[in-house]
């Protein structure tokens, strides 16, 4: 009998995992687990998994909520606005400054990203309603933080349940004060994950930023033929900056970042650009489609993880522009190639053949695959917290081999898959980190880059390679087994 194929092992793992569930839950989860094949045209989505459905209760999902999608992801990084966590104290506290959306500014004076503003609902606010309190909150923010360029109201669960009208309250106050006030109905119970929060937040940008009336500070942007916006880059560890530099080097002008290190002015003027560059499709395809429809701005998805995808993306972006830009793109590629070669030469021998399992959100479960493969590493499992079918369709194009696909994977499943498939590295979030490290498995947090980064662009790839090497080849993993146990084995 030959060695068990990867594909067979993966399918067996899926079957085995499902056995642990009661019947109803098993039936549900079966639809979210599968094995994707890169060449398998019969698969409608990668591994034929279904997605964006309600989470099975009681299973320890890693998912977040709509509030997390709006406040935590889309709006939170907009630096010159104050974002109120509207409702009880917890949500804002747990999500404070965790995503490493880097920005330049004087925090507390003209920028506010890492702060936590909360309306801190008490029982009386639940019973009698919190609209008056919200009004007062807005007033106090304008008084104490006069350089804010707008305020968003991020609804927590109770708001939609007690019948508060944050839209009316915001409208009245905006009129009185002249400030931009954005009410966001992103209560945590809406939708099934962060995803609906992204969508709701996108819609409010459309309604309150594009349609905003407050004068913007400074001179308006004079459009040029080469203006682009980076959409769906949250500048985690500085990602958008290490992307921006490449676009500028090829002669484009990046007039806006959405929404890492963003200002409301950049966003408001984005409808003037020639092309929208969309990195995180999941969280910001909505606004990109809107700008296409409303302003005729085309958008293009790109991927700045790892040189193979970066090169492809640079050429794709350049193809929207004239020959000068296209020639510049080639020059950029040429300029960085020796550095990339040196990085690969340095790290590939140390990482080649190492297997990786991923579980992240947004774009990363497919976008980072190429970066691992550039280093000779093999991704054998991946999945998303909150993807939709279109994400899984796109994933099919990014996988290199038979890959176990798990949508909304929970603690039990991920642990079981890892035990069964024995990868050399697990790359996921903070909640799972120490589970796998206890097992002696190298681990990297792929939400926060484990307090490193940036990982985007050429410079980011070098850091990515170094970090993966650090994780996999650290001496610490060898200490798990005590010498007396080693002797027993021998």
């Amino acid at each position, binding site marked *: 009998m030959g060695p068990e194929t990867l594909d067979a092992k993966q399918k067996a793992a899926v079957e085995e995992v499902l056995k642990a*569930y009661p019947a109803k839950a098993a039936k549900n989860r079966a639809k979210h687990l599968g094995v994707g094949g890169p060449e398998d045209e019969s698969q409608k989505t990668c591994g034929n998994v279904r997605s964006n459905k309600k989470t099975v*209760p009681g299973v320890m999902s890693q998912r977040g909520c709509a509030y997390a999608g709006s406040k935590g992801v889309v709006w939170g990084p907009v630096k010159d606005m104050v974002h109120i966590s509207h409702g009880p*104290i*917890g949500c804002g*506290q747990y999500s404070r400054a965790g995503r490493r959306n880097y920005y330049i500014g*004087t*925090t507390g004076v003209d920028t506010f990203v890492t702060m936590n503003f909360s309306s801190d609902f008490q029982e009386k606010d639940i019973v009698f309603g919190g609209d008056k309190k919200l009004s007062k909150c807005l007033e106090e923010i304008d008084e104490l933080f006069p350089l804010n360029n707008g305020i968003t109201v991020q609804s927590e669960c109770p708001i939609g349940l007690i019948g508060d009208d944050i839209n009316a309250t915001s409208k009245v106050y905006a009129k009185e004060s002249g400030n931009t006030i954005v009410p966001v109905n992103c209560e945590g119970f809406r939708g099934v994950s962060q995803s609906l929060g992204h969508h709701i937040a996108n819609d409010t940008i459309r309604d309150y930023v594009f349609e905003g009336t407050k004068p913007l500070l400074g001179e308006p942007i004079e459009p040029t033929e080469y203006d682009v916006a980076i959409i769906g880059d949250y500048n985690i560890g500085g990602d958008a900056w290490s992307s921006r530099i490449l676009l500028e080097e090829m002669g484009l002008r990046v007039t806006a970042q959405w929404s890492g290190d963003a*200002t409301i002015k950049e966003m408001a003027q984005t409808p003037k650009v020639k092309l929208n560059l969309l990195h995180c499709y999941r969280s910001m395809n909505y606004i990109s489609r809107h700008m296409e429809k409303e302003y005729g701005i085309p958008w293009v998805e790109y991927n700045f993880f790892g040189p193979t995808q970066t090169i492809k993306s640079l050429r794709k972006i350049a193809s929207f522009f004239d020959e000068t830009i296209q020639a510049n793109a080639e020059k950029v590629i040429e300029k960085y190639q020796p550095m990339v070669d040196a990085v690969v030469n340095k790290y590939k021998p140390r990482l080649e053949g190492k297997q990786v399992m991923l579980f992240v959100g947004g774009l990363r479960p497919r976008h980072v695959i190429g970066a691992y493969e550039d280093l000779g590493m093999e991704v054998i499992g991946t999945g998303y917290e909150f993807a939709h079918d279109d994400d899984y369709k796109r994933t099919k194009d990014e996988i290199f081999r038979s890959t176990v696909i798990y949508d909304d994977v929970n603690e039990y499943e991920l642990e079981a898959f890892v035990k069964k498939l024995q990868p050399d590295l697990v790359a996921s979030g903070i909640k799972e980190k120490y589970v796998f490290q206890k097992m002696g498995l190298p681990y990297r947090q792929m939400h926060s880059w484990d307090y490193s980064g940036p990982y985007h662009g*050429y410079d980011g790839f070098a*850091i990515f390679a170094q970090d993966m090497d650090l994780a996999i080849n650290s001496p610490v993993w060898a200490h798990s087994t005590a010498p007396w146990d080693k002797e027993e084995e021998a």
Partner: protein
Amino acid sequence: MQEVENIVNGKELFKKPEYQKVLADKKAFEGAMGAVNPGKVEEIAEWTKSWEYREKNLAREAITVNPAKACQPLGAVMVALGFENTMPYVHGSHGCVAYFRSYFTRHFKEPTPCVSDSMTEDAAVFGGLVNMKDGLKNCAALYKPDMIMVSTTCMAEVIGDDLFAFASAAKEEDGGEFLPEDFPIPYAHTPSFVGSHITGYDNMMQGTLQQLNEGMKGEKTDTINIIPGFETYIGSIRSIKSIADAFGANYTMIGDHSDQWDMPAGNYEMFAGGTKIEDAKQAINAKATLSMQKYATTKTMKMITKRWKQKESANLNPIGLKGTDEFVMKLAELTGKEVPESLKTERGRLVDAMQDSYPYMHGKKFAIWGDPDFLIGMVSFLLEMGAEPTHVLCHNAPRGWEDEMRALLDTSPAAADCHVWAGKDLWHMRSLLFTEPVDFMIGNSYGKELMRDTGTPLIYIGFPIFDRHHLHRYSISGYDGALNLLTWITNKVLDQLDEETKGIASTDYFFDLIR
């Protein structure tokens, strides 16, 4: 561009000239005041340091800025993880649970198991009964806990779900396949819009003890229950146990999460340690219950003294010398034993150390914030060392705390300059630090921005601590815990002394080798 022989992450990368240019050029498109008129930013920044700003800031009625508290279910999750093979289960949205798990995990650098029943919009309309039935069953089937402890998010509280009825219905529908009739499912309502995380701790602890002990009243035992409270120092729980062990006391630590959040490497088991369920079910028959955090156990202790009628029960606070002495004396009284030699020696060593280091803490002004019990203990210790707690801030101060703290501060010769700030947040603290500066701050990671803005050195003691490693493994309770406090504080004072005297050929005459 990266140099392959010296790859740097963002910290150094963005200092390179090509990135400095990127960042500078970006300003042309920005509308933040710093990009348009930096002078204005400076002007407002200065204004935020003024007494005028402080008055406006302290007059805030509605908006909370940079809070120093969290919400109820967080505390309930901690209670559950202090019991053997017990899964915390939060009835409500899974977003909340993702937050609780991340929050604890970032502090302890340990996994934090907890499930939710993922209520969504339809559950908000029709109630969460179906979610609870499926959720309890799935949780029991997958993770095989011996107990599931149910708390609630604010969503479930607003719609008013009936936990007891739901849990019963879940068992009935399951018919014993995964949830046997006698499977313990203690529950508590933990609305996020009432109190804080310590209120949730109290509610969950009270609910659990009450429900597990129903019909268990029997012969009184000589056991002493010890409830640690919302204790984020693993070492503190161990210190308390070692003191009780020194007496040879027969005790049960009720809600002991010290193993759960301190698992050795090698393999992973979801649950470790914790109070045995059968021991928890005997809590009612103990001769006394000692709470280590009275403000985190108000309701629990009320039940124990009033309904369980455990007359000898007491609220203690074993942080600092006096607090530990009181705990030790209480154990001596309850066990009828002399204070053991080992503790006498340990105490003597602590006092010796305090007498060695006192010049460096004496008269130093401190700002400190945190949970109410933590503050009572910490301020006692600062006073024992002759320090001056200038600003004592408790965002989640319960009734009675402010008076107790005031009375404590009034024992200081510097009482007039020591201020209590109940219900205030860390943006208030910023104003206090600018207008009435102190020498050092003691607090959690949220003090980091205060450290940056005001230049006041921060001594990391509290919860949560995300950006310093392993401090939570140490003790801040008992004599050994007090020694840790003394060490951390004194050495930070000395570090700062070096910082301030290291100027070559200007101040370094005071840069002493020996102190």
